């Protein structure tokens, strides 16, 4: 078996299993509704008719995979990119606030970590608060942030990015504190014998040593930022964004719409994480230990 096949086959087997279970689940969950609303009015029916009906309902409890796929596909090809019926439009809106929040959160995280490793006082003063900040559920924080920023005249992307940032900075801070402290004693003593300033030691030793710690936290951070941006779209009554799309879908009982928005956000998350991984490969391409 080739190397590629060895990697693809297990993933493929799981995928097939999931799809089979999904179709079975659709039959199981949709059958009562289908019997009541579709089959009974038509008269006698067989099992095959029932199965076919559960897979093609307008408002199923659990839409079948092909229904979601078709809905997603038609939203992409039948509507222009700037139409609110096109899911890419919503994905772009959410991606924008995620990326702005992610960049700001990363900068904040690195700055906080830099301050923490350079000052014992800040280490003691800040770290407990940073940890405590993450114990407050984002769903509780989001409306408050939106109201406050709204009253200050910030609307649109800023409040959403702020909440994405709130979720992003934490993993980055924690990883960077660890990473910036990762140089061994012999490395710091070497810089000491060169009479390097703190800034030089930071740029030439601590920061490069911390990069392998940074990237895994960026992958976590960008995914958390996406969650933050989508949560921020829920209470605003926002017109656009995947979070808003999910909310309107549930208002109108459009289950297929909810699922295709969900699949779209999963795809967006994959793309964002893949982008971070690509950046990691480029930045760390020369690193190897051993």
């Amino acid at each position: 078996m080739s190397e590629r096949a060895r990697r693809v086959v297990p993933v493929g087997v799981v995928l097939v299993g999931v799809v089979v279970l999904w179709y079975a689940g659709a039959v199981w969950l949709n059958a009562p509704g289908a019997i009541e609303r579709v089959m009974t009015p038509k008269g006698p029916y067989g099992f095959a008719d029932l199965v076919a009906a559960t897979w093609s309902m307008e408002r199923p409890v659990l839409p079948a995979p092909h229904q979601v796929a078709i809905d997603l596909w038609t939203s992409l090809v039948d509507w222009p990119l700037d139409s609110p019926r096109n899911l890419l439009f919503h994905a772009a809106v959410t991606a924008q606030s995620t990326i702005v929040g992610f960049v700001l959160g990363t900068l904040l995280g690195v700055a906080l970590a830099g301050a923490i490793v350079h000052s014992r006082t800040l280490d003691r003063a800040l770290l407990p608060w940073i940890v405590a900040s993450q114990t407050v559920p984002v769903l509780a924080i989001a409306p408050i942030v939106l109201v406050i920023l709204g009253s200050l005249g910030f609307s649109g992307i800023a409040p959403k990015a702020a909440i994405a940032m709130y979720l992003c900075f934490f993993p980055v801070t924690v990883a960077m504190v660890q990473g910036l402290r990762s140089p061994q004693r012999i490395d710091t003593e070497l810089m000491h014998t060169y009479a390097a300033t703190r800034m030089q030691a930071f740029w030439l030793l601590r920061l490069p040593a911390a990069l392998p710690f940074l990237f895994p936290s960026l992958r976590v951070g960008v995914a958390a930022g996406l969650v933050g941006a989508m949560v921020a779209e829920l209470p605003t009554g926002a017109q656009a964004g995947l979070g808003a799309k999910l909310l309107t879908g549930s208002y109108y009982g459009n289950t297929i719409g909810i699922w295709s928005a969900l699949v779209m956000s999963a795809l967006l998350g994959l793309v964002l994480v893949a982008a971070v991984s690509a950046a990691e490969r480029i930045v760390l391409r020369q690193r190897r230990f051993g």
Partner: protein
Amino acid sequence: MLTIRSSFARSRGPAIALMNAPDRMLHPSNGTASGRELAVRARKVSVVYPSADAPVQALSEIDLAIAPGEFVSLIGPSGCGKTTLLRVIADLEPITSGTVEVNGMSPHEARLARAYGYVFQSPALFPWRTVLANVMLPLQIQGRDAATCKSVAMEQLARVGLGGFEKKYPWQLSGGMQQRVSIARALGFEPRLLMMDEPFGALDEITRDRLNEQLQQLWRREKRTVVFVTHSIAEAAYLSTRIVVMSPRPGRILKVIASPLPDERDLGMRDSPEFVAVAHELREALAIGSGRSVDV
């Protein structure tokens, strides 16, 4: 092996050409009336580590003077404070009492004046930097311009026989080559004093012999002051102009042996009567230090 041998052959060439250049190392003029200043001067230096039960006397009343151009080895069993003494001179360890001067300055001032290069037990190369960039590091910290950094680093790498390895990463090099990179790095900014803490301790004996030979040639042509910590009798006897024998609990100087060997040495000399005599004297002193008698 091939690369080491060929580089070794190459490093012999410029040795003669460079012999005259660093004469100033032998006679540094400090501009004061006191005349020739010592490279290192330690007076009654003690280092005590506080500990729960009894404080540990790492160094006890050390007196030591090292003249410019000397190659001084510190030898002794582990725990005798030889590394501590080196670290004190390098301002990596505070002293409890006494005074230390490096080039007439306090160790702290000497460190800030970048008066010395330090080679650690392990190469301590940054894995994200190429060999060349690693050697350039101290020069960059000193704020030299990029072109100077590069040309100096290239030259130093050639001198330790690693020309052509500039673009490699540390993990692509053997242990002996990595340690040579760290020596090139320490020599790049032309420190008047070179301190080495068991630099070849982790290497196999064959590599160690080669590096000893290269270090001896380097010292002979540049006559920088070297303070060298080792626990190998052969290494100390082969390299040094003076050998300081130390003893533990408390860390103190037992004996200072001046080498009768000429400056120009080769590994073959290790069978000469002078070398054997120095090695014997060393072994005897070390045995006295550890409270045993000698039967050699």
